[in-house]
């Protein structure tokens, strides 16, 4: 701020900001912040139930219901696990990706959404490179929309599967959550916070369960105002100091595709923020190591850590299917007008 700015002496109050109309559809999952603690418990509960259910019985849950996967960005984990989740419930799925569809010909998100709805889609799972795209799609189609990652904004099912993974290790046996479930737990998120939708969804979710979230990374990728994103969030620039306080460490990939001209010295970055076996043994010998994937071995973490005993990265992937079964079920069974 310019130091010559005149200090504000009087307050002139404008009209209030209207309440958000979102989500229009009670089956939608747009933001991790939209879910009440009761809804989170319900999703965790259903994830466990569906995961353990006989696949041949589970197959009848959403038999022949239609779910569309609309992907504007490449994806391995999220796309496959959503697809397996929907199919595991018996739903018919169809994949529309930006590279093999009329999106290439210039069809807008609105028109693509309306087309999928006309084809009988009852829910749309959307991965999009623009922040906010799921809100646009939901407003235009009024279908249940599941946000499978929007730009630099959110990835709510990732936060839920991360939560399930953390609970399994840090609070075994707990499947109902409340505001104290993660009291005393510190989760450090490390690396490219600025561009990370995984970080934003976890920052919205974890503090509400009592966890403390520490953000750690170089200034270029971690603006100070990130700490203002909500309560229970703080910045710790010193990686080792953050590790010493943490029960869970979430490593993030440097999102080269979103750097937009930002120059980053990767050698410097590795020196400061790479999770190595030595660093882990020295500062956080019992913490679980998480990563939303895709991992870049040798950059944000070493191969030894990725494959080591503290790594729960593949458990996260596995939990993705269970969580996504629960949210797809919720999408197609939440009655209009009432929240499931």
């Amino acid at each position, binding site marked *: *701020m*310019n130091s010559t*700015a*005149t200090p504000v002496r009087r307050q002139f109050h404008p009209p209030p900001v209207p309440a958000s109309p979102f989500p229009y559809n009670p089956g939608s999952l747009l933001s991790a912040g939209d879910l009440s603690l009761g809804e989170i418990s319900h999703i965790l509960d259903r994830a466990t139930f569906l995961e353990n259910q006989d696949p041949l019985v589970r197959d009848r849950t959403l038999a022949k219901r239609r779910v569309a996967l609309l992907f504007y960005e490449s994806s391995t984990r999220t796309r496959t696990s959503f697809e397996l989740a929907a199919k595991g419930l018996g739903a018919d799925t169809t994949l529309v990706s930006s590279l093999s569809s009329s999106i290439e010909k210039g069809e*807008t998100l609105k028109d693509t959404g309306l087309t999928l709805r006309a084809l009988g889609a009852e829910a749309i799972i959307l991965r999009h490179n*623009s*922040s906010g795209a799921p809100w*646009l799609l939901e407003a*235009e189609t009024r279908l249940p929309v599941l946000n499978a990652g929007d730009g630099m904004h959110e990835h709510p099912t990732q936060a839920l599967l991360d939560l399930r993974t953390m609970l399994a290790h840090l609070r075994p046996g707990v499947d109902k959550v409340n505001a104290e479930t993660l009291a005393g737990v510190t989760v450090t998120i490390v690396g490219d916070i600025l561009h990370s939708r995984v970080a934003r969804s976890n920052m919205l979710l974890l503090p509400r369960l009592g966890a403390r979230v520490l953000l750690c990374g170089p200034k270029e990728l971690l603006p100070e105002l990130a700490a203002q994103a909500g309560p229970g969030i703080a910045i710790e620039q010193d990686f080792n100091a953050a590790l010493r306080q943490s029960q869970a460490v979430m490593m993030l990939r440097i999102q080269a595709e979103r750097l937009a*001209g930002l120059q980053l010295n990767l050698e410097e970055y590795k020196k400061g923020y790479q999770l190595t076996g030595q660093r882990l043994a020295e500062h956080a010998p019992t913490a679980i190591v998480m990563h939303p994937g895709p991992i870049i071995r040798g950059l944000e973490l070493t191969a030894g850590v990725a494959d080591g005993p503290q790594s729960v990265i593949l458990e996260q992937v596995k939990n993705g299917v269970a969580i996504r079964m629960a949210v797809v079920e919720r999408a197609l069974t939440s009655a209009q007008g009432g929240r499931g």
Partner: protein
Amino acid sequence: MTALVIRGGHLIDPAAGVDGLKDILLKDGRVAEIAGHGKLKQANGAQVLDATGLVVAPGLVDIHVHLREPGQGYKETIATGTAAAAAGGFTAVAAMPNTIPVNDSAEITRWMQAPERGAAIRVFPIGAATRGSKGEALNDFAALKSAGAVAVTDDGHPILKDNVMRETLAAAARVGLTVIQHAEDTRLTQGASMNAGPVAFRLGLRGMPTEAESGLVERDIRLVTELRDARVHLHVAHTSTAAALAAVRQARRSGLRVTCEVAPHHFLLTEEHVGMYDTNAKMNPPLRSAADRNAMVEAILDGVVDAIATDHAPHAIHEKEVEFENAPNGITGLETALGLSLRWLHHEWKMPIGRVLSLLSAQPAALLNLKGRGTLTVGSFADVVVFDPKAEWTFRARETKSKARNTPFDGWTMQGKVRWTISEGRIAYSGE
């Protein structure tokens, strides 16, 4: 041309210091006579408009609109844009040169003013400062001025190079034109779609820092200072940050001819109104923080702000129904400026109505040297707005005269309903 009498209204003409019950005779496009109620001498045979209980004021002047012609008639035309202006009480608008092609020639400047455009009110083109608004070669300002241009600017393509801006200021001063700068250091705003800050971080959108505006305003003021030429006039378009206003305030104290305008959305809305990616809350400069918004109101009340200008920026519906990052900047504003200004500046924040009207007419007209506009003395142009100052009404975007509906003020309560807008003696708009 028939003569018109506006009878029994409350005339408020801030520039002339008039505030009272008057009858006005308009004849041959000019104000012919002003007298106490019932005392006009030459009113025989004139059409009479009964303005009992209404305010009669100089027609409003908006020095920052985008009428989209030539080139983008699907968004707006000069005819539809000026129809919206007339409905909003405006009798003169200054049209930005970011048309297709860019208005960088006398030919386009004349084309915009031709009777075939079907303008409901007077259009004053603003010429591009540089060829194609590319920020390199200066246009022929003398030719633009003689064709009717009232200022020069590159608007959305701010002039970043010091030497080009210096030459622009000097060359415009020589022919008596104002230089309008859309103050944005675009090197700091690449890929950004809203104000930088906690809201942008939360929404995962790249932000435009306030320094991108204030830094360029400070640079421009430095250039004006260095030129040491009293004819140089810099006008800062749509000021949105406290820091930029502070720079303008300081420049004025130093005696420089630096003026600024503020748009209604910047004194009423904040970045929180972006909500969940409402593209009707996307404009450039963006909606800022609560502190910046408050500073706009304060500066308006303090008299630092010289004009309220709408930055009326119509877009087709389909252009705004896209991802926030991909949506074009801008909102419409001609039909809501008076109603919002009276509702908030006058009614809520107690600014005298004469001062509000002055910011919407006398001051902007004087700023661009629009002779005979913004006042209703005898001999002035018969540009008049007649409105009911007490009437509250709801603005409905679907009822707009504009081609576009991209407004964040749909459904908002307005105060002050336009009854008639008279442009050079002709009724350009007649409301209920």
